[in-house]
């Protein structure tokens, strides 16, 4: 099953990169969303896939008896999901505020922090 997942994950990473290279900051934010999903699946797959057997210990046992899904990557991903949600929400608000202040989401025009170089480049063009 893992190679199939690997292909899907590769496609997701490729889309992430393509979105990152966009001129619109909104699309870069969408890329962040895609990146976190792709990464979660990557960790999940790297921990090996087990079909339909969650890591639970039966009521009459003290240790799992049959093969279960790997719980460790799941725990890591659970933390990652929540943190990437926080990051995503924050970046989204930040983009919104930046748009309010600068009036644009074009990354080539969002250069208030390094205006000198951008100005000289404009002069060159």
């Amino acid at each position, binding site marked *: 099953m893992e190679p199939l997942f690997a292909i899907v994950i590769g496609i997701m990473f490729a889309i992430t990169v393509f979105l990152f290279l966009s001129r619109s900051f909104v699309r870069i934010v969408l890329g962040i969303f895609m990146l976190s999903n792709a990464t979660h699946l990557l960790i999940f797959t790297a921990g*090996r896939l087990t*079909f339909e057997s969650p890591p*639970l210990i039966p009521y009459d046992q003290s240790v799992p008896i049959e093969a279960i899904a790997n719980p460790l990557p*799941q725990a890591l*991903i659970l933390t990652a999901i*929540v943190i990437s949600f926080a990051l995503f*929400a924050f970046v989204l608000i930040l983009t919104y505020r930046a*748009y309010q202040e*600068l009036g644009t989401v074009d990354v080539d025009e969002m250069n208030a922090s390094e205006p000198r170089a951008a100005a000289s480049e404009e002069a060159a063009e």
Partner: protein
Amino acid sequence: MISQAVLTCFALALFAPFIHQLMRSHSGWVLAIFPASLFVHFLGYVPGVAAGETYREAMPWVETWGVYLSFYVDGLSLVFALLITGIGALIIFYTGGYLAGHPHQGRFYGFMLAFMGSMLGLVLADNLIALFVFWELTSVTSFLLIGFDHQRERARRAAIQALFVTAGGGLAMLAGFVMLGAATGTMEMSEILAGGSLSAHRLYMPILLLVLAGAFTKSAQVPFHFWLPNAMEAPTPVSAYLHSATMVKAGVYLLARMSPALGGTDLWATILPIFGGATLIYGTLLGLRQTDLKLMLAYTTVASLGLLVMLLGLGSEYALLAAALYLIAHSFFKGALFLVAGCVDHQTGTRETVRLGGLMRAMPITAFAALLAGLSMMGIPFFFGFLAKEVIYEATAYADNMWLLTTVAVVGNGLMFTIAALVAWGPFFGRRMETPKAPREGSLYLWLGPLALAVLGLAFGAYPHIPQDLFVTPVASAIAGYEVHHATFPTIPKMGLPLILSGVTVAFGLFIFLIAGWVRAFLNAAGQRMWGPDRGSDQFLAALDFLSRTLVGLLQTGRLRLYITVTLVVLAITLGVPIIAYGLFPSEISVPQAPFHVYGVLLLTVVGALALMFARSRLQAILSMGVTGISVALLFLLFGAPDLAYTQFMVETLSVVIIALVLLRLPVDTYDSRHILPSLRDAAIAGAVGVFFTVLLIAVTARPMDLTLTDYFAAHAYVSAHGRNIVNVILVDFRALDTLGEIVVVMVAGLAALALIKIRRGKLVPPGNGASPDDERGAS
């Protein structure tokens, strides 16, 4: 007690400005009490050390790396410590008069005392790392002192140049020390020296070259000499103290200290005399060219350091005795002459020899001190300098390359005779010249220091057996690593080859003195506009500036897309290189057997992702995000991760809600037009990253999995933590702190987002850039 002596210097340096505030015009002698008492303290070691004893103390510093703050007192370090504290006391006292009324006098005392502590630490340290730290501390304090007059550009340039050269050499030396530690298995010099010569070790040559790089830069050997004359920009007490008596001798000290371990080889006996001899001749020739008192003295200091390095390179008993003698004699006469130059400058307003003459009448005490020090430097009998010269000639006359070395020594000493005469005789005797200020004798502060040093030179010369037993023989023995014997130095010179050579030297020096004006003109004509390491270092620094500016201009264009592109290309390369290098491409991919709905969900994921990439409207973007997120959640659910699925469902719903709220206010469909060519380039980068991730993941999953941690958690989830859901147990029990951190991150992100929204509109807009986005939003 040794460590306290060193560390209190630094403590006092901190308080010196306040003491100066309190004492005002008395601060000079009050602050001099401290180094003077240290001097007395170190005098207490003299009888023991003269009898061949050594003292060592250590306290732990960074024990895990074998770094101790350890100190070691033997003949060599004791003489240095005495010079540092004794001359230091005189210099601090002298500063009280020289800088009287200067607005930053207090700060100057602080720097000087900090330097004194560093220098004491340098010569007393036993641990190599401690030695290195003190070494660089002297570079830093020297930087502060050269640049003390920081409003002049020349002073700033000289300070940076000195720091650049000496600290750079120090770094090379550190590398040598690390190798030395690796070669001997210890960082304590006393143990390394006890282990004998390292000449057979395979790291010997790199160690020697690196240590020499440190020593030669610090002790201003050709071609690293140029920073020392430039350092004359510093106030004269600094020139007298750091750049003649103490700091510039640190390199000589290091060579002397390492001599038993690194010396005695052909390499050592070749490099040191060549560089030392070249420095001796070059320094004296350049010194003759100068007319500024301080610069003349600075170049003779360069020359003297060369002479010392040459003697250490010879390594015979005579040579080491000569080095020890000359080391002490030079500190006395050169320190005194520098202070005299400062007196003259302070009292007349000029240091130009051509404008000075006949000051004898106006400044008799200074003139007397200058005369005594000058005679010692010339090497006139009954002065300490004479004794040093005699033994130098004993050393060169019985060396292998007798003719060459003796000629170099005679010429160097002869030229030094000339400069000594020009400096000590010229300003005070002969025709009275007009000076910017009407000259008169300086205060006690100004003449006590030079007079004391000059008189010491005479006293040691008159009673040579006292310094011989107490200082010279212990120093030479410490350098040699065994007991050095020499017949008692005679007060009245004995007939012999050295005396004849001394006579030749005096005659040669006198001859040059008489034609000094002509020689100077000739040397000036020869050396005019010549490219040298001084200008070379400026060009090097300018080139470095240019390189970094070009590099920054190239990399930091202010275009976010370029940064992202570079980052992602580097990512692709980092992923791709090992894949191609190790040939990780899978030979065949078997289509796995799985229920039909698994394929369906995977397909849904891809479709959602592709839809997001091509989204042209807000609705499409929001919808495709939802599709992607939910399908990932379904994948989690199918493959045994219900907790992940639930969380993903929740987060996905929230994300879509938030993005729907925000995206309504953001333009999605504009600005997304990439031209064909950039589009293709971006797609190529994206494709490479995607393929590499796929290949890497397939290669990883094809290998066996290490389940140690998983098994541990599965075995202990119920037994130790009483939970049946292993994922939950890991999160809230085994890795509870991580989860706490996660909660904090979410909270901080929420607060930050709230703060962003609450900031008053328009507060961040820079003036003149206030295009109102409201209008555009209305239009779009």
